[in-house]
């Protein structure tokens, strides 16, 4: 085995292979930085070129690209609060607050060194594990995978913030949203309102952008400052590396989590970062800083999402079953260069497998190195006044959302989810809990249904299930202890200081709770329109959630002072003093989307740029035109080169326009 390993290294570093690896890394970095363009877009861009290339160069290039995307997607997550890809959504939670504190460089370098560590760890695990993985992967059937989704869900307790009941309701809302679209058992459409777009459910990319990015963008616009509130950018890259060393065990544990979740086909790469984040919270004594700029909250997801790629390669290579979306494209690439994955990858093709592993390790080093060097400079973006940045941000998130299904519905969904995100934030419903529910819903329902079909309810006595159940109990115990401690801390002492809120102050949140109750009631009604097998899951969630909503409503109507359930950022929180309401910018955004619908993305976005920069940023005419030309030019060229559509409107349907106005 060792000789094969080193022979593989030898052939990788000789000849032009390293150059191709470098090219792949470079492309991966550029694509990863751009939200909405993840491994899938990058790989499909490469596929035409690898056709006819020799095996090692082709593989090196593909792996180079896949390996560094979870590294470079951190830039937008930390600096702008926009999840760079669905694998780094959790990084936003603490990375972005750190950037706001002026510690962007520290957060980035901690993230990149954690990524490097995770990536190398993933490659190391792959080296040994690939030889013995087959029986282990076969041991995880539907029943075990269902239990794993439950384990993931138990993290919600940790993510719930200061009100467990709100955390549960947010999670339930996510679960209900996750059932939208075709049901796994019967193929019936749930919660689709007869709209074609909703029949596939809302894409995760759109959810992530709407729930996290839009509320942040609008918040920053209302504050009208730069992202970094501090005037100096403290803490350079050394600080970040030191952070990693301080939390090395956390990084190690999260890398292990990343490998395991990545290696299990069926859970999907987008859960990894959340599970790692939840784990970091559960194992940290003082949790107050999470969500406000805790460096652990950056290290954990980043270590896990790079390690995931190593793990995800295992089922891809051994079974030909992709462990994540980008692995599906990688698999297509392997087939195009004439490699058939399967048991022979650890037999006659072992040298190819080790080439892949070495490429993975080298790519991680190159990628993280390049990002570390860049982070110091890129962090300065956070000092630019936000009104100048905003049009670019909005341009990018619209583009990113549209790449989900290339349908105008993506933009409408983005707006809708964005409003939901703003309201959840305002009323203190934890958004991470919502997203975890959303991510896990389909797997949970599907695996439960399959497990019951295969073994009946006796699946609960399978040994693997019992082991995971034990882990689940531990996790719930920790979560429960945490919640109990939180309520002790806040409860009594707050009551003395805070006056009893008046009913009119409470009105908006009571109203919101009622609306959410109506949503669950509709979910229940909708569940009874489909057959039994597709009904059970959404109906049970809705019933439990209606009960919880009832309790919440009761407590809110009682208006007890200091009850953590009372939260309204607009009435009694930090946003109360801001000059413009959030609806102001929602209207701007809605106008843009209406514009896209009427005249297409290129024209609408150009107009938006000009009007916004002139009116909101009060930029000069010259500056406005230069910025608009840069932004739009970049976008148009990018979409042309990558054969990506931009939204077209009614105008383009009615008359044919010259390029680029016809884009589509």
């Amino acid at each position, binding site marked *: 085995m060792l000789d094969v390993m080193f022979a593989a290294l030898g052939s990788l570093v000789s000849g032009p292979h390293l150059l191709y690896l470098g090219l792949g890394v470079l492309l991966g970095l550029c694509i990863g930085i751009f939200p909405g363009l993840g491994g899938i877009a990058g790989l499909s861009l490469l596929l035409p070129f690898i056709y006819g290339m020799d095996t090692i160069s082709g593989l090196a290039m593909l792996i180079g690209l896949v390996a560094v995307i979870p590294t470079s997607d951190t830039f937008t997550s930390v600096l702008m609060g926009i999840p760079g890809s669905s694998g780094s959504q959790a990084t936003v939670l603490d990375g972005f607050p750190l950037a706001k504190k002026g510690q962007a460089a520290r957060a980035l370098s901690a993230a990149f060194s954690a990524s490097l560590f995770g990536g190398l760890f993933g490659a190391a695990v792959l080296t040994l594990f690939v030889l013995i993985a087959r029986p282990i992967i076969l041991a995880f059937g539907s029943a075990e995978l269902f239990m794993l989704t439950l384990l993931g869900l138990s993290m919600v307790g940790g993510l719930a913030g200061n009100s467990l009941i709100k955390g549960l309701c947010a999670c339930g809302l996510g679960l209900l949203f996750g059932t939208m679209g075709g049901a796994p058992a019967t193929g019936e459409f749930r919660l689709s309102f007869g709209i074609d777009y909703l029949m596939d459910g809302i894409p995760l990319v759109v959810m992530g952008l709407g729930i996290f990015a839009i509320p942040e963008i609008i918040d920053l616009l209302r504050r009208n400052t730069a992202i970094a509130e501090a005037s100096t950018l403290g803490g350079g890259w050394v600080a970040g590396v030191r952070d990693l060393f301080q939390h090395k065990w956390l990084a190690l544990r999260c890398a292990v989590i990343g490998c395991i979740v990545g290696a299990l086909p069926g859970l999907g790469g987008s859960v990894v970062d959340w599970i790692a984040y939840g784990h970091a919270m559960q194992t940290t004594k003082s949790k107050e800083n999470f969500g406000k700029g805790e460096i652990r909250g950056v290290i954990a997801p980043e270590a896990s999402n790079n390690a995931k790629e190593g793990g995800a390669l295992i089922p891809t290579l051994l079974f030909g079953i992709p462990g994540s979306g980008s692995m599906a494209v*990688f698999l297509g690439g392997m087939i195009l260069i004439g490699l058939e994955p399967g048991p022979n990858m650890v037999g006659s093709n072992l040298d190819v497998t080790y080439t892949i592993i070495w490429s993975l390790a080298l790519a991680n080093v190159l990628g993280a190195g390049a990002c570390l060097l860049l982070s110091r400079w890129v962090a300065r973006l956070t000092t630019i006044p936000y009104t100048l940045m905003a049009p670019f941000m909005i341009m990018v998130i619209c583009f990113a959302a549209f790449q989900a299904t290339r349908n105008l519905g993506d933009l409408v969904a983005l707006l809708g989810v964005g409003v939901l995100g703003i309201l959840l934030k305002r009323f203190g419903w934890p958004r991470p809990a919502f997203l975890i529910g959303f991510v896990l819903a389909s797997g949970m329902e599907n695996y439960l249904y399959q497990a019951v079909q295969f073994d009946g309810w006796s699946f609960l006595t399978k040994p693997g299930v019992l082991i995971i159940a034990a882990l689940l109990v531990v996790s719930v115990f920790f979560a429960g202890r945490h919640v109990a401690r939180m309520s002790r801390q806040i409860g009594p002492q707050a009551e003395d200081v805070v006056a009893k809120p008046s009913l009119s102050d409470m009105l908006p949140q009571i109203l919101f709770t009622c609306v959410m109750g109506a949503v669950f009631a509709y979910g229940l009604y909708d569940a009874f329109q489909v057959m039994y097998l597709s009904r059970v899951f959404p109906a049970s969630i809705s019933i439990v959630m209606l009960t919880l909503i009832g309790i919440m409503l009761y407590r809110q109507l009682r208006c007890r002072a200091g009850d953590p359930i009372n939260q309204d950022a607009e009435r009694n929180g930090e946003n109360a003093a801001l000059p413009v309401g959030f609806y102001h910018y929602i209207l701007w955004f809605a106008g843009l989307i209406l514009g896209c619908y009427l005249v297409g993305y290129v024209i609408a976005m150009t107009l938006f740029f000009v009007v916004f920069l002139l009116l909101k940023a009060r930029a000069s005419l010259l500056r406005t035109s230069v910025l608009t030309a840069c932004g739009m030019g970049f976008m148009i060229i990018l979409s042309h080169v990558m054969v990506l559509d931009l939204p077209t409107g009614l105008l383009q349907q009615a008359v044919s326009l010259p390029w680029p106005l016809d884009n589509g």
Partner: protein
Amino acid sequence: MKKIIVGIAASLTLGFGLGTSQSTLAADFSGERIEWIVPFKEGGGTDTWARFFSPLISETLPGQPTIVIKNVPGGGSINGANQFDARGDNNGLDVFGSTASTLFYSMLGDKRARYQPRDWIPVFATPTGGVLYLSPDLGVNSAAELVKLQDQELTFPSLGPTSLDLVPLLAMEMLGLKIKPVFGMDRSAGRLAFERGEVNVDYQTSAPYIKKVTPLVEEGKAVPIMSWGILGEDGTMQRDPSFPDLPHFAEVYEMIHGEKPDSQAYNIWKTFFVAGFAAQKIMFLQEGTPQEIVDTYRQAAIEVAKQPGFKEKASIAIGDYDQILGKNVDTAFKMIFSLSDEDTQWIQHWLNERYGVRF
């Protein structure tokens, strides 16, 4: 230089009257960009198939145009097909790659499928076969022994009743097998479930069967029962040359029922078999594309398949079967749309009764 020659040739044609053949000139794609819509995400079977062919066809078409793959996912290929149908140009610059489900939705009358594949013009089609195999625990060693299973419920992993799995589901019912399908599992998830022992009957299309199930057969962990067969030139079912030792479905039907299949159900099965397997992936041009362009495309596909080394390359990427080329693709295409209204009602009724599918 090339442009000049083309220019001279063009003026010659104009000068010497209209009687000469225009076919070589009408379809020159120099400097053009052809968009090939694939109605799935990057990385799946149809995507890999299109990406395998796109450089080959690009080299062979006159003028060597760039061919780019445009993935339009959603609705299990419905979105991409709707988009191509509504907006695809008929000048040969927009092509579409369909798979079984694209045609199934339309054949079954799914309301979301607003496209009319009947009007599209097929260029070539790529066939595949399929093999049904059982778990050795069932104690059945060949198709002849299937009767032993008539009182036993078999668990079968399936993506959904209106997917490609319609063909095996209907076939197994016609053989009198009692099937409990577990939905929501694609073919590779199904194979994994079979290896775990969660299901005891499964099928794979030819390429994955050969590469991933044959080793299981050799280890004694799977028992091959039958292939679906292939469609002969005379329209009858024949043994699949990739699996000459396995009886095909019609043979097995005869073994069990003592007579050749000739019912409405069998004819419907055969039509869906053609759309799902015998002509699984089809490259389409838009309705109303001029005949010269269609001929140019069809000729390009014929030349691609003739290239030395094509078969070896193709066997890994897309399977071992001969491509359906030239006029043959019209024959297969006509079969696909041969269902009468009663046939459509029959299959809708069957799907509704068995699996609660609503139309």
